[in-house]
């Protein structure tokens, strides 16, 4: 069983991995993104973030997450995928996103998980606002 969810509650990584493991799978690989205190700017300076705010185009984000899972299943030999993305205000150290992939062989689980986070950052309509002591800014997406 796959799962894809948006939530404003703290994410339990353990539960995400566990909910997608079928009896025949020996391993899951989980990518766990955190709200980071320090961000390296393009000019080399470091900026300190006080908290983050994530916002989504929710129905489209869920559709895009479902498409990603479908595409990953065609591309890699995997059993199940779980993607949970946090929305709203996140304190530093809280989990913003979890992607867990269960597969019969761990190689496919690693490859699929790495592919999924890269694609999620390019296609799923979610935006991150970084709030600093002296202002705030919407993060620029990763270049493709």
């Amino acid at each position, binding site marked *: 069983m796959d799962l894809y969810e948006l939530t404003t509650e703290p994410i339990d990584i353990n539960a995400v991995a566990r909910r997608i493991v079928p009896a025949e799978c020996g391993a899951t690989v989980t990518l766990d993104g955190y709200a980071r205190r320090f961000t390296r700017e393009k000019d080399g300076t470091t900026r300190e973030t006080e908290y983050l705010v994530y916002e989504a185009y929710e129905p489209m984000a869920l559709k895009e997450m479902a498409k990603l899972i479908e595409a990953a299943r065609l591309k890699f030999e995997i059993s199940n995928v779980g993607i949970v993305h946090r929305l709203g205000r996140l304190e530093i150290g809280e989990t913003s996103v979890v992607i867990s992939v269960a597969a019969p062989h761990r190689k496919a689980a690693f490859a699929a998980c790495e592919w999924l986070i890269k694609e999620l950052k390019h296609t799923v309509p*979610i*935006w991150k606002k970084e709030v600093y002591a002296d202002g705030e800014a919407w*993060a620029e997406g990763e270049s493709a």
Partner: protein
Amino acid sequence: MQITTLFFGATADAAGTREAKIAINDGTTVRELIEKLRTDYTGLATHKLLFALNEEYAETDTIIKDGDEVAIFTAVSGG
């Protein structure tokens, strides 16, 4: 005809709104709508925009139909 336009994140800040009902002519394409929005909301002018039609990424030459929902946003930054 009337459509709904949604703004998120930086485009919502730039437009000063999250949602607008907009009257457009029959045969208007997504590209034409975006040009109109850049004129209506000058804060959008500096942004490279992405868009979705009815919750799916769409080609810019797609013709918008009555009641469609068009979302305008900047490069996504989730994760």
